């Protein structure tokens, strides 16, 4: 777990990034986590346990953050995927990908709190963007969609 923390997760400052990254390591059919590098150094069982533990901790950390911080983390995460903010919000509101990004055996109430916070954070962020856009003179608004580059490999889940 320390190995995983020092080598991979240390580069992800935001707990949202860590939670999404770790959920992408999980097979949704079995609930097992896979990481070839870690499994090669240790074993599949040890790697799975370490990833599950880190996923759980990332979720707990995220569940304690305030709404303001969650909005800020989502802005940062969306920027790292190079998608347009409004498009990102629209897709997250429709698909609710955060529902499959949480650890399996979470307390139902804490899970509900987290889902509710995501829903609120998306609404807050969208309102702020729309208000900002309404305040801007039309001539300053971009006329073309945001330029896109391929998503980072570790963020391809969403």
């Amino acid at each position, binding site marked *: 777990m320390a190995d995983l923390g020092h080598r991979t997760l240390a580069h992800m400052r935001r707990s949202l990034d860590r939670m999404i990254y770790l959920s992408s390591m999980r097979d949704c059919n079995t609930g097992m986590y896979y990481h070839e590098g870690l499994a090669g150094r240790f074993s599949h069982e040890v790697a799975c346990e370490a990833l599950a533990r880190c996923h759980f901790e990332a979720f707990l950390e995220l*569940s304690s953050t*305030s709404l303001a911080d969650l909005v800020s983390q989502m802005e940062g995460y969306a920027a790292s995927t190079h998608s347009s903010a409004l498009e990102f919000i629209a897709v997250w509101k429709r698909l609710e990908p955060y529902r499959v990004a949480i650890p399996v055996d979470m*307390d139902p*109430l804490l899970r*509900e*709190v987290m889902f509710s916070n995501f829903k*609120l954070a998306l609404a807050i962020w969208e*309102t702020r963007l729309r208000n900002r856009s309404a305040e801007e003179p039309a001539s300053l608004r971009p006329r073309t969609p945001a330029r896109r580059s391929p998503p980072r490999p570790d963020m391809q889940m969403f």
Partner: protein
Amino acid sequence: MLYVFFVHPTSSGPEGSAESLVSAHHAISSLQISLLSDRVTDRIFSDSDFDYVSSMGTPDILQLLLEERRRLALLWVGQVRAQIGTLMRFHRSQSALYANLSLSAELRLVYGFWSLLAFCRALEFLIFLRGPYRARAAVRRAVSAAGHLCDVTGGPVAFLRSRAAEMATASYKGGGITG
């Protein structure tokens, strides 16, 4: 009253005892680890989230926050009430077999259970009517009372948190207890 509460237990055979033990163990864990934890109550009833959204000056978002928090607060108080009810049923059916409680301690426990259950009902009503942020003082009181009840029942039923109870839980979940 005491006869109904303690002397006329609803206990069944060994299977019922194991099930009751597992339920009580789960209730105490759920209360102590999740429901009464600052992590959960702080988020649901957080001043900072309310202040943050209020400062935005957007009535729609504030309304959404109040609706979401009211829903979560009602879910929370409902779960606290359910777990306290489970503990009370366990105590009524099983504790006489394990714990040597004095009459005054039993009376205090009965009063503690019933008053907290009634308080939770009142709290649900208060949250429903006035929203979660105007019920914070009552929430703190409920958390304190439930925590105290967990501590009190934790003494006589301390074995619930023992290795044996963990094994019973695992065995029960795995279908190992056949009765």
